[in-house]
C-alpha cells in the first residue's frame, strides 16, 4: 500500500509537467492579451508594459523562465491585481474557498447518502418519488438561479441573513453560500446513491444477509452501503476538488473572496500567471483526491487491490 502511494505520488511529477506545458501553450495560443481592452494602448506604452512583464520574449523563453520560477516557488505577479502576487492571491483566497467547500461537501455527503439510501430502501414509494423529485429540482435549478433566489428570499424579503459580503468571515455570511454550494451536490449524491443502492439491495449477498436474520440496519450500513457507495466515491474525487476551489457564480453573487473566480476571470482577463497558478493548484488537488479515491476503492471492496 505504502509503496503504491509513493509510486503514485512520483507519477504526479510527470503528470504535472504535462499539464503545465499544455496549459501554458494553450494560454499563449489564445487570441487577445492581458492588455487588450476597450481603450487600446498606444504601441509605445504597450511595449513598456510587455517588457516590464517579460512578455516581449519568444514563447519558449517565457516558458522556460516560468518553469524555472515555479521550481523556486515563484508563481509571478498578477496582471490584474497589480499589488499582489499569484501566491498571495491563492494563499488569501484558498482558506475561504476550502472552508465553504468542506461545509458544502460535508452536508452534501450526509444528506445525499442518507436521502439516496432511504429512497432506495423504499423504491418506487411516494417517499422515493418525493426525495428524487427534490433531487431532480436541485439539479434542474442551476446555481445562478438558486443563489439569487436565496438572497432575495432570506436577504431582502425576510431580512434574516445578509444578502452578500464576506463580513470578515462572520458565520451569518457563510450560511447562504454554503447552502447554494451544497444543494446541487446533495442532489447529485442522492441520485447516485439511490441508483447503486437499488442494485446492491437486490444482490444475492444482501438477500443472504437478510435471510441470516441480521438486523436491517446492519445489512444496510455494513453490507449494502459498501458496494453502493463506489460510484459516489468515484464522483466525489473530482467533485471535491471542484467544490473546495470555489465557484465563480457563488463568489460573485455572494461577494466571497475565494479562488473560484480566478479560474474564469483569470482566463477572461488573460492574466497568465493567475491562470497557471490555479491550474497547477487544481491539478495537485485532482491528483491527490483521485489517489484517495483509488485507495477508498480497496477499502470499500476488498477484492479491488490498489496496484
Amino acid at each position, binding site marked *: 500500500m505504502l509503496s503504491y502511494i509513493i509510486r503514485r505520488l512520483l507519477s504526479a511529477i510527470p503528470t504535472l509537467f504535462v499539464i503545465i506545458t499544455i496549459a501554458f501553450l494553450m494560454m499563449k495560443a489564445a487570441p487577445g492579451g492581458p492588455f487588450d481592452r476597450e481603450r487600446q494602448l498606444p504601441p509605445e506604452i504597450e511595449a513598456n508594459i510587455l517588457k516590464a512583464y517579460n512578455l516581449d520574449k519568444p514563447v519558449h523563453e517565457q516558458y522556460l523562465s516560468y518553469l524555472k520560477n515555479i521550481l523556486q516557488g515563484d508563481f509571478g505577479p498578477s496582471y490584474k491585481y497589480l499589488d499582489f502576487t499569484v501566491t498571495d492571491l491563492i494563499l488569501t483566497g484558498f482558506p475561504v474557498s476550502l472552508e465553504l467547500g468542506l461545509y458544502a461537501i460535508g452536508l452534501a455527503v450526509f444528506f445525499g447518502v442518507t436521502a439516496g439510501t432511504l429512497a432506495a430502501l423504499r423504491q418506487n414509494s411516494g417517499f422515493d418519488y418525493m426525495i428524487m423529485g427534490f433531487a*431532480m*429540482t436541485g439539479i434542474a435549478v442551476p446555481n445562478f438561479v438558486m443563489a439569487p433566489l436565496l438572497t432575495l428570499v432570506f436577504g431582502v424579503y425576510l431580512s434574516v441573513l445578509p444578502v452578500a459580503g464576506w463580513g470578515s468571515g462572520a458565520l451569518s455570511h457563510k450560511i447562504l453560500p454554503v447552502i447554494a454550494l451544497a444543494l446541487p451536490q446533495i442532489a447529485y449524491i442522492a*441520485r*447516485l446513491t439511490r441508483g447503486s443502492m437499488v442494485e446492491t439491495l437486490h444482490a444475492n449477498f444482501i438477500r443472504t444477509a437478510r435471510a441470516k436474520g441480521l438486523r436491517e440496519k446492519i445489512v444496510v450500513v455494513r453490507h449494502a452501503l459498501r*458496494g453502493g457507495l463506489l460510484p459516489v466515491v468515484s464522483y466525489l474525487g473530482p467533485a471535491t476538488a471542484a467544490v473546495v476551489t470555489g465557484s465563480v457564480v457563488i463568489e460573485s453573487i455572494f461577494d466571497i473572496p475565494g479562488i473560484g473566480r480566478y479560474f474564469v476571470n483569470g482566463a477572461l482577463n488573460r492574466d497568465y500567471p493567475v491562470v497557471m497558478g490555479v491550474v497547477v493548484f487544481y491539478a495537485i488537488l485532482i491528483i491527490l483526491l483521485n489517489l484517495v479515491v483509488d485507495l477508498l476503492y480497496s477499502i470499500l471492496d476488498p477484492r479491488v487491490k490498489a496496484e
Partner: protein
Amino acid sequence: MTETGYKDTTRDQLTDTDAAGIRGRSLWHDARRRLLNNKAAVTSMVILGIIILMAVCAPMLSTWTYDDPDWGYDFPGPPSMEHKHWFGTDGNGRDLFVRTLYGARVSLLVGILATTVSLIIGVTYGAVSGFIGGRTDNFMMRIVDVMYSLPFMFFVILLMVFFGRNIFLIFIALGAVEWLTMARIVRGQTLSVKKKEFIEAAHAVGVSNIVIIFRHIIPNVLGPVIVYMTLTIPQVILTESFLSFLGLGVQEPMTSWGVLISEGARQMESAPWLLVFPAVFLAVTLFCFNFIGDGLRDALDPRDR
C-alpha cells in the same frame, strides 16, 4: 461477502455461445417490453415527444418569429392573451413562446448528443482502463487527471480559433469535459466487477478481452452509468449557455434554454416570466429523461425478469 450480486449475463451466454445473437435479440425484446410496461417511463416518453414535436413545428405554432420585435407591445412584456404573447416578450420585444420552442431545438440537441459523446467515450475508456489495469490503467488515468486540470475556457477559445464557429464544436467541447467523471465512475465499477467469478470463468474458456469488456463488463456497470447520464444532461444544457458567453454556443438571435434561463435569472423579480417558462420546460424535460433513465435501467436489469 462471497455471493455475487451482479448481473450474470455470462452464464447464459457460456452455455449457448452459438445462439448469442438470438439470445441477445430476445434480451432487447424483453427489455423493450418491460420499458413499455413502466408507466412513468412511457408518460415521460410521450411528454418528451410532444416537446420535440413542438420544437420542430415551432414556426407553425405562432404568428411571431423568433427574431423580430413586436413594436406594439412592451419590452419586456408580461404574458398577454390579447397580444397573443402567451409567454410574454423579452427585453427586445420578441415573443418568448416562440423563443422557448426554438431554444428547445438547441438544448435538446446538445443535451442528447453531447451526453451521448461523453457516454461513448467515458464508458469505453473507463471500462478498458479498469479492465486492463496495471500500468495501462495508471497511464490512462493520468491522462484523465491532465484533462481535468486543463483550463476549459482556453480549450473552448482555441476550438473557436482553429475551427471557427460550428454547432458540432459545442458537442465536442462539452463531450470532452463531461466524459471524464463518467470514465472514472465506470473504471471504479470495472475494478470491482472484473474480480467476479463469472469474469474469471469467461477468461478460463478463452473469451477475448474485447468481448469480455463489451459483453460482460459494460452491461454490469450500466446502472450507475445511466444514473450519471441523466445527471449529465442538465449539466451540458446549462454549460452551453456559458459557451455562448465565450462566443462558441448559439448566437443571437437564435437561443437556447440555458441562455434564456441565465437571462431570466437576472430579472427574476422584475420580469419573472422570462425565467419561469424556460425553466419549467427544462425541468419537465429533465424529469422525463430521469424517468426514462430509471425505466431503462430497470428494463435492462436481467435479475428482475
